[in-house]
């Protein structure tokens, strides 16, 4: 048996109130807060730290790192630029990483293609990212060293923002965080394991 999130909260409240006297009010308050949070929808976002140009660059990077495809939306759809901007506004170390990294990126793109990162065609943008990934895999960044480090941050935080969002969680197919009356491993999963075990000689 699986239930919706709303049912989860209702059951938790019920369970908590039956567990011990005196908790009823507290439990009710908490559940109310959960549900209120669920309805809160973010509106238009005004960057807290990044400039408009920097925010647009981070957004473009987020789209390239996690592009929209049949299985889910993009890093932008998942709120990665907002996530990065928020944490930069709260942490000087991150702020410096992004401010300096974005300066490096536009500078390097200017030398390669005569424009800012967002100002050049998409093939130029992906060529830059390919160069950074190649340098990273080669283990020595050379004159791309600063860019490799910066891209590592952008990728890491974009991936985190995506897979902690409803669309990213749906993309990989996480099915938990529910209230169940019993646990069972579904028969297709058990049968799959039987087949795999046989293949492995187990």
């Amino acid at each position: 048996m699986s239930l919706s999130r709303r049912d989860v909260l209702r059951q938790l409240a019920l369970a908590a109130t039956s567990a011990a006297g005196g908790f009823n009010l507290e439990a009710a308050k908490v559940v109310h807060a959960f549900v209120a949070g669920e309805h809160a929808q973010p509106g238009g976002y005004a960057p807290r730290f990044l400039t408009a140009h920097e925010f647009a660059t981070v957004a473009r990077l987020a789209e390239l790192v996690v592009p929209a495809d049949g299985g889910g939306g993009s890093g932008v759809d998942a709120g990665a630029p907002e996530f990065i901007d928020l944490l930069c506004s709260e942490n000087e170390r991150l702020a410096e990483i992004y401010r300096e990294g974005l300066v490096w990126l536009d500078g390097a793109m200017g030398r390669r293609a005569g424009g800012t990162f967002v100002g050049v065609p998409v093939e130029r943008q992906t060529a830059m990212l390919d160069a950074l990934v190649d340098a990273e895999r080669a283990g020595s960044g050379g004159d791309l060293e600063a860019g490799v480090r910066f891209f590592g941050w952008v990728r890491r935080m974009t991936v985190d923002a995506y897979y902690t969002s409803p669309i990213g969680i749906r993309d990989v197919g996480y099915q938990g965080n529910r209230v169940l009356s019993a646990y069972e491993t579904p028969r297709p999963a058990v049968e799959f394991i039987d087949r795999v075990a046989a293949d492995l000689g187990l």
Partner: protein
Amino acid sequence: MPAIQPREEIHDVVVIGSGAGGATVAHVLTGLGVRVTLLEAGPMLDPYREFKEHHWPYEYEHRGAEPGGRRYFGEGKPFGFFSTTSGGWELDGEPYTVADDTDDFWWFRSRIVGGRTNHYGRMTFRFSDYDFNPRDRDGLGWNWPIGYEDIAPYYDRAEAFIGVTGSREGLRSAPDGVFHDPPPPKAHELLIQRASHKLGIPCIPNRRAVITRALNGRPACHYCGQCGRGCLTASNYSASQVQILPALETGRLTLVDQAMAREITTDGEGRVTGVVYVDKRTGEERRVRSRVLVLAASACESARLLLNSKTRDFSSGVANHSGVVGRYLMDTVGFGLGGYVPALERLPRYNSDGAGGAHLYMPWWGWDEQERLGFPRGYHIEIGGGYGMPGIGSFGRSARAAGYGAALKEHARREYGTRVSFAGRGEMIPNDASYCEIDPTVVDRWGIPVLRFHFRWSEHEIRQARHMRETFLELIALLGGEPDAPARRDASGISIGGSIIHEVGTVRMGDDPDTSALNGFCQAHDAPNLFVCDGASFVSNPDKNPTLTINALAWRASEYLADEMGRGNL
């Protein structure tokens, strides 16, 4: 008008610390009609405000990276943003030191009602009969003054009260107990179980402090897999929810939170009279008097309190005529190895959250073949895997492997749920080089002298960690998997002392007052109205995680204490 000094109240029993030991004492004694005053160095726990059970990462702007992305810089809560409030290895204003010439040691301190039971893994294992006389078996360490038959009835009581899943297996290394039905194995565990059996290693339903049927008003587990966040329905054991709150309802428990014990007071003739503590809210020093004092502040904190209490009758610290207080510090031997199992790539997705933690584990199998194995004592194996709730860092590996773009997303879909992990938890043998003492110069924010640690793994533990590594590599190979690179290193991957948070042994029990501080009832040889009911009393540290034995020893000590009080002996 001159102030009239009110006569100081003398409490029946004062308990210091509200974790597995202190909460058991409070619960059992109040149940027997004894009035208890419980001092806790941290604040009261408010589950409804603090627990993040069922929260999604997207409910927070920082997604779980914590404000300012602290997690990205190796800061923040030790077990992650969503974990329940507990404590940490680093506490502001509460330093400790490690001697220069020893291995490193990390000291976890919990400062909240319920102590470490708020966060612990809830693995709930009985010691075996042979664990009480290890010296008779291999000449190492020391024997306990009690045997399995002494503690078994208290294992029964503790298990029945806190609720433990498990199955009857008849294994000597893992004695059966009073069990709730265990949940069935998860898919990856079924595969691991086959590999385990191929190696002749038992792989049985896990024994965890989770209830699968209602118990004392606590509803059964609802299988969200989030024990580590704190359970709003108290369907797992945490001392605060399962013992402290019911004890408060008896009206016989007085809980004093934010009370940092500084020093034990005595009457100058070998009896304890109470304790001086700092009220952390005001910084003022207060004194509480008691007929009986029970220390349950955690093994090292209890030793620190005894050693910091030098009185006319106890010149080397209260209850320390033997000189063993602080000595024979043990942690658990830890070694972990994960791997990627391609065979799991096409496993049909399902909700594998379950009862929190693994549904199977591997108890020690080599207890009757130590000579062949080449190291003394043993370990059990805890297993990990499944489709966890995605969080910060979950797909960092895919990102690095696949670069960026569509390939990254494909990699993440393919990799999700294909990782398994093995964690060995083994027995450390007490040694002379592992102990804590009072640092001669450093004090904490309240001016209380702090502990200085000395810690050293011996060749026994190193060999055991090496064996863990070999076993895990064999298991991963049988699964057709690829072991993770970082843990391929040799037994140098043995855990840092204190990092498994199983410190025990610093106020050990024994029959001989010259070589032990406590008798088999956790009562000080030198001061009969003093008891130590945390892990400090342990003579050895078998591979069974210590919490259940702390519960059982505290339960036994409490019944003895109440009995002795009733007879007028205390």
